[in-house]
């Protein structure tokens, strides 16, 4: 597999090579390699503690990987080695946006403000690092108008236009999930990483989420990386699934392939006679 990847040029949006993340003696991720492509939804699944969120934290700069290379090929801005970048530079330059397992909105700020803050760097430059903004120059006012337009576009797609001036913390749970995705999209990313977006959603909301994610994939042509436990979401919309267990990749392929892979079934359901092995290991 890695031999194939070494032969550039690859069309992959994200290439993860030999990623290892070690916390003291604990190997949270051990030698994981996979690729994610633009216009595809790549799901990362695995039992609890398999290292999925750690993988996301490495990708988005919250952790520095112990070993490995994370290459992001931005369609317009060139290639970025994510493991070498500052955490807050990754969203801005490499175009990797993420959401969190436990929603991290700005609860005391309005829905609209949440979406405007996502465009912080753009607006900051437009406001001449505050000086032009203080003087109220038209450059800044136009930029702000554009930012509001982008926010409106996403508000329409998550059905929150009516409640744009609510405090984000007062929204129902499902709307907060969707708002977080919209906020990530307002950074205009090339790769969107979603950490359990369907957690805590009812079946109807879950179906709406599927629609939103496929819409983002098809209309915006970006790659999506998805951690999810809800198999109706994973099997319904993923183009490609990576399965982790105890920090190792145990399977990688299309949903049909994963569904029938004995290694995956063993990891999820256990196998007869597997208990002793688990106790030993």
């Amino acid at each position, binding site marked *: 597999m890695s031999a194939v990847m070494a032969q550039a040029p690859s069309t992959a949006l994200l290439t993860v090579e030999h990623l290892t993340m070690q916390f003291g003696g604990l190997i949270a991720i051990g030698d994981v390699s996979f690729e994610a492509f633009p216009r595809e939804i790549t799901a990362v699944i695995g039992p609890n503690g398999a290292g999925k969120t750690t993988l996301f934290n490495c990708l*988005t*700069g*919250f952790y520095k990987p112990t070993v490995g290379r994370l290459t992001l090929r931005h369609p317009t801005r060139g290639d970025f080695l994510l493991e070498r970048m500052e*955490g*807050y*530079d*990754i*969203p*801005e330059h490499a175009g990797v*946006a*993420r959401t*969190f397992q436990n929603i*991290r*909105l*700005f*609860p*005391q*700020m*309005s829905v*609209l*403000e949440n979406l*405007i*803050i*996502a465009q*912080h*760097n753009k*607006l*900051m430059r437009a*406001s001449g*690092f*505050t000086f032009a*903004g*203080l003087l109220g120059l038209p450059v*800044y006012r136009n930029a*702000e108008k554009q930012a*509001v337009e982008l926010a*409106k576009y996403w*508000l329409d797609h998550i059905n929150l*236009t009516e409640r*744009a*001036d609510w405090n984000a913390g007062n929204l129902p749970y499902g709307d907060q999930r969707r708002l977080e995705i919209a*906020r*990530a999209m307002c*950074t205009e990313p090339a790769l969107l990483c979603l950490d359990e977006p369907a957690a805590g959603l009812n079946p109807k909301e879950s179906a709406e989420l599927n629609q939103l994610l496929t819409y983002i994939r098809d209309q915006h042509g970006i790659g999506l990386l998805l951690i999810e436990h809800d198999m109706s979401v994973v099997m319904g919309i993923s183009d490609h699934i990576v399965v982790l267990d105890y920090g190792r990749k145990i399977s990688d392929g299309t949903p049909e392939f994963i569904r029938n892979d004995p290694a995956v079934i063993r990891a999820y359901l256990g196998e007869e006679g597997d208990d002793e092995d688990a106790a030993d290991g």
Partner: protein
Amino acid sequence: MAEAVAASATPPRAMLREAGLIALVVFGLSFSLVGFKIEDVPGGLAILTRFDGVFFATALAFFGRIALIMLREQRALPVALVALPTAALVLLLQLFSGDLDPERSYPFRSGVVNWSLFAVALALGLRAVWLAWHHGGSLTGREARDAAMDRVGAKVQHAARFLGPALLGFAIVLPFLPFADRRLLDIAILVVTYIMLGWGLNIVVGLAGLLDLGYVAFYAVGAYSYALLAQYFDLGFWTCLPLAGILAAFAGILLGFPVLRLRGDYLAIVTLGFGEIIRVILLNWYTFTGGPDGISGIPRPTFFGLELTKRATDGETFHQFFGLTYSPMDRIIFLFYLILALALITNLFTLRIRKLPIGRAWEALREDEIACRSLGMNPRNTKLTAFSIGAMFGGFGGSFFATRQGFISPESFTFIESAVILAIVVLGGMGSQIGVVFAAILLIGLPEFFRELQQYRMLAFGLAMVMIMVWRPSGLLAHREPTLRLHPKPGQENAS
């Protein structure tokens, strides 16, 4: 309070026990605090006893508590019958105590305490009359009171657009009102100084959510910048004002760097330490800052080069130029307008920057730093700008303080100052500009009016704080308006 809703009377015994308990606490507190007083007498110190005061305080606490219990249970008439005559009696005693005994006033030695007692008794009595009149009107329970306070808060917030200009208008005409004497103007200058400092600290604490317990350090940097620049380089106030702001801003960055990774309590402790470090440096660097002797003879500000003194050291003075007769009040009035202008600049700047990306970034940082990082915001720069801009306004305030006092020493920049400024911000309602104004008036103005009570005037400070904490735990006016809206505010298109 469930039991308050029904008119179920507390048995007299329980009532007496509750009141007795309160009286016991008051007795315990006042026995040593009020009962004894050390006074300078020829040939040393003497302990005076004031057990009458202890007696009155205990008795008043006892009966006051009974009155409150009865009010809670809607038995208003007896309370009214007792409280109103008490108020009248206290008033009479206070007004005519001079005839009784020219040495002291009755029932307490201090007129301020008597007036307060009169006010409390009158308030109790009037409330009882009101209750009896409406016969168990609705507002007694705690929830009802909270709801009422919330409504008041929302109304004040709503009225802030008119209230702000109204307060400003009042402040502008204040020096020319008939009752504006030197003392009142001095208090007004002090209050406005704290309002300005509160607005400055509001940027750091209210907007960026960085708990700063050492804000007075920047105040000190500003004050000493001006004093030292004036002393060593003979620079005037108007040259030094921006320099003091810049130097304080640098001090803010200097503090900001090491504390970037800290949050909450840890940040508070380090900023507290920073405040003390600055003070200790000022205290010990004797050759440069004068140490505990301070710096005196700090030049006064000029009005476009015109001095506000009786005789000019060179050139003309203010009153000569405008052909006025000299009045020492001119300088006070000028200082008042100066600090008012500085405070207004702080306010306008904050209001404006809140609606700019950097202001929103500060608020977002307060809400969730990790989310900010995931959106590509640089938390380091954002925090440092908050620290430095907050510090800059502290520096402006400091150089005003130096020029007003004419003398500064490290004693003016102790931790208690930071605590007071922080209390103003927190009690005003984090991030609320108009809340800071009310909190400053309450916390600074009130104790100044109670100066007659000497060291006990801090009790007024404490009382104001306790009352705000009981009635408005999240601050006087804790209500945040979004910085931009998609839809017009409800109630604005159809005039409410």
